[in-house]
């Protein structure tokens, strides 16, 4: 042992001291177990000058490229998502009028509601009447308003 006090405080009985000696003997037994070439083997395979490592570390496997790739992918996805969103919200090409109004815009709503009353198509409509299959009942509200606004009926 490398110090005088071996953990057996003053007054410790001989049995404990004997146990300490047995434990030291056990340690010595384990230390003597490897063969004679053990140290040389370990030294040769692990010396600092050796390029190869027995236990590879993961720290050096990271490089800027590994970080740039997912970042670039995330950016592309973001741009693509924005483009998709804008494409979906853009009004379609000519041919049909798509009505979009702000639900808080009360004036517009009242105007449109008034058009319904003014329209010659709808003015004569009676809720009790049975609509012809080919009359304005078949049209959607959007189509009716389109006819009115585009001068289909004045």
């Amino acid at each position, binding site marked *: *042992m*490398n*110090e005088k*006090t071996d*953990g057996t*405080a003053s007054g410790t009985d001989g*049995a*404990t001291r004997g*146990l*300490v000696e*047995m*434990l*030291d*003997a*056990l*340690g010595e*037994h*384990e*230390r*003597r*177990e*490897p063969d004679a070439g*053990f*140290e*040389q083997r*370990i*030294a040769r*395979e*692990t*010396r*600092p*000058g*050796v390029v190869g*490592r*027995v*236990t590879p*570390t993961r720290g050096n496997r990271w490089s800027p490229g590994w970080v740039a790739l997912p970042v670039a992918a995330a950016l592309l996805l973001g741009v693509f998502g924005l483009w998709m969103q804008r494409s979906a919200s853009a009004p379609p090409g000519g041919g049909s009028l798509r009505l979009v109004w702000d639900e808080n815009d009360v004036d517009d709503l009242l105007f449109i509601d008034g058009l319904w009353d003014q329209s010659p198509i709808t003015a004569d409509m009676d809720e009790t009447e049975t609509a012809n299959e080919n009359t304005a009942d078949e049209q959607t509200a959007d189509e009716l308003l389109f006819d009115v606004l585009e001068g289909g009926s004045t």
Partner: protein
Amino acid sequence: MRPIAADEHPGSVSEHDRLGALVTDAASGDEAAWESIVSMYARRIYAMAKSRLRDAESAEEITQSVFATLAVHLREGGYEERGRFESWLFRITMNRVRDEGRQRQRRSAETVPIEACEVVADGTGAGDDGRLAALRAAVGGLDGPDREVIELRHHGQLSFAQIADLLGEPIGTVLARHHRALKKIRRVIEDEESLQ
């Protein structure tokens, strides 16, 4: 730089300085210095790993792994000599042994409880072998902290001051733990002897 012999332990200040110089030389590629360091600590590390893992092959692998880690740190300048080389080296050893032990538990493959694989002294074995086996079994039955103190002290040959520094505990705590571990070991051995 005179290599320090395998049985020489850096207890004095001058020996600490020599060890520090040895480590510095090894870091700069001095093969003789490296071999000296390995010869000083390899068997101590092996004995600690063997005590825990009960497997010579694994103990040698652990030893090689510890020195490989040390070599990497020295080569890359990751170690700063502050006179605590041994504590640092055995901390690496303890961590490797714990990691291996945990992996074995997860695999629950080859690690057989010491109580099952060791032949406890039953009076039929050779005297020394039987007593050593009983002692191994008793040490194996200790809980983690107590066992570590026993192994660091008797297998790793560290001083109590070094053990306290390594574990980050007061030296009084380490001494008390060692004493408690001795009492437990003695109780186990006496119980075994009384059964015979």
